[in-house]
């Protein structure tokens, strides 16, 4: 049994999955629009939350998992069927039932347990979204947005991945859009998403969030060699790179995707200035990547600049300054556009 479904490779699993499910139901929204309307753009440095064996502080470049789905539903009028299961057998039965009903269904999985992924990319991350669109014998047909082509996965392997343990354990979660409007005017949702991003990056009165969070991280990174010693400082920097460039789409990837969204928003809202903001944010993505590259070299002990931690902090401050200027301009453009 196979539901006709168009596989599309995406930039980030959650946004690509949501866009593909909505497109299948006839709602024409693309991945950057899902990211923007879903208020996915974010930054937080949360030192009191430790990850990876509780050793390293959490740094996140996107809204928390699930937030994009919720915001997209609220703003586009989509009602999601979104459930978890204590019992793995019931979780697999529920998946089979929705496939039998002809519904391509997203499941949350642990990346490490998906055998079709190349070894280099199988790490312990439990919030990976894939779409199941068919079943043949003991195998499921999967559209994994990470890959260029659809893949197959055995029932046992998929069940194991749906019940991976640890942080963000999927608990057999599955979801699909139960109610989708036939058409939607994107202007209101796009404007709401932009306002949220401006608020999150500029206005949250907490020094660890938004551009202030980036500046706080800069200060902390600069002090790592003195406070932690060279070995632990290098490990911390390595952890930061993994968060930046490996888990999900990372800092640079999200900046590139939001840059694409700003470009689309310019057309949807008829505000030309957003195209300029789009180009500038894409350029900030390149600076985040430059930061990741220097951090990677520092962690590996490769030849780097003099005083690499000072330079890393400088790059972070540069990103913060430029993002602050961009979102202030976006705010002003929205105000003018509303007038």
């Amino acid at each position: 049994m196979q539901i006709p479904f168009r596989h599309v490779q995406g930039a980030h699993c959650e946004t690509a999955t949501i866009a593909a499910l909505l497109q299948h139901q006839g709602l024409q929204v693309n991945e950057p629009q899902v990211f923007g309307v879903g208020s996915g753009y974010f930054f937080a440095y949360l030192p009191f939350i430790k990850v990876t064996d509780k050793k390293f502080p959490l740094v996140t470049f996107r809204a928390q998992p699930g937030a994009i789905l919720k915001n997209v539903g609220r703003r586009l009028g989509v009602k999601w069927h979104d459930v978890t299961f204590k019992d793995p057998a019931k979780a697999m039965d529920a998946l089979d039932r929705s496939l039998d009903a002809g519904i391509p269904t997203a499941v949350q999985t642990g990346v490490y347990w998906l055998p079709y992924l190349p070894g280099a990319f199988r790490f312990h991350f439990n919030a990976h979204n894939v779409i199941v669109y068919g079943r043949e014998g003991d195998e499921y047909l999967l559209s994994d947005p990470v890959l260029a082509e659809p893949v197959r996965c055995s029932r046992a392997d998929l069940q194991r991945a749906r019940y991976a343990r640890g942080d963000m354990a999927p608990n057999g979660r599955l979801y699909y859009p139960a109610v989708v409007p036939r058409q939607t005017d994107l202007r209101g949702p796009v404007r709401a998403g932009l306002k949220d991003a401006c608020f999150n990056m500029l206005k949250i009165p907490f020094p660890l969030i938004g551009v202030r969070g980036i500046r706080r991280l800069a200060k902390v990174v600069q002090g790592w060699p003195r406070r932690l010693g060279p070995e632990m400082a290098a490990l911390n920097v390595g952890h930061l790179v993994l968060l930046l460039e490996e888990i999900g789409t990372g800092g640079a990837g999200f900046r590139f995707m939001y840059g694409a969204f700003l470009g689309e928003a310019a057309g949807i809202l008829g505000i030309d200035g957003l195209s300029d903001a789009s180009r500038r944010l894409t350029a900030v993505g390149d600076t985040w990547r430059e930061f990741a590259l220097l951090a990677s070299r520092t962690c590996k002990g490769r030849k780097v600049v003099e005083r690499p931690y000072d330079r890393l902090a400088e790059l972070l401050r540069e990103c913060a300054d430029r993002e602050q200027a961009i979102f202030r301009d976006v705010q002003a453009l929205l105000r003018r556009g509303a007038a």
Partner: protein
Amino acid sequence: MEGLEKELRALVQKACDLDDARMATVTDDDPLIGPESPLGLDSLDALEIVTAVQRQYGVRIDNQNTSIRVLQSLRILADFIRQEKAAQ
């Protein structure tokens, strides 16, 4: 862009600080990254390659999924650059 695979071979060697003997173990069709690769490169090396490609050819590999696809081999990376340059 004749000989792009050869240029990319030199780029990968320099970006990842590999010696000639190690670089000689990889063909144009071998995986570049991961345990399946004769080079044994990891995701941090992937970042080096992605950045070097952008600097040298002006082609941005803008997310991890594209990296997974195009870093499958020197040949696939070369094809990707040719396509992107043609589209620019």
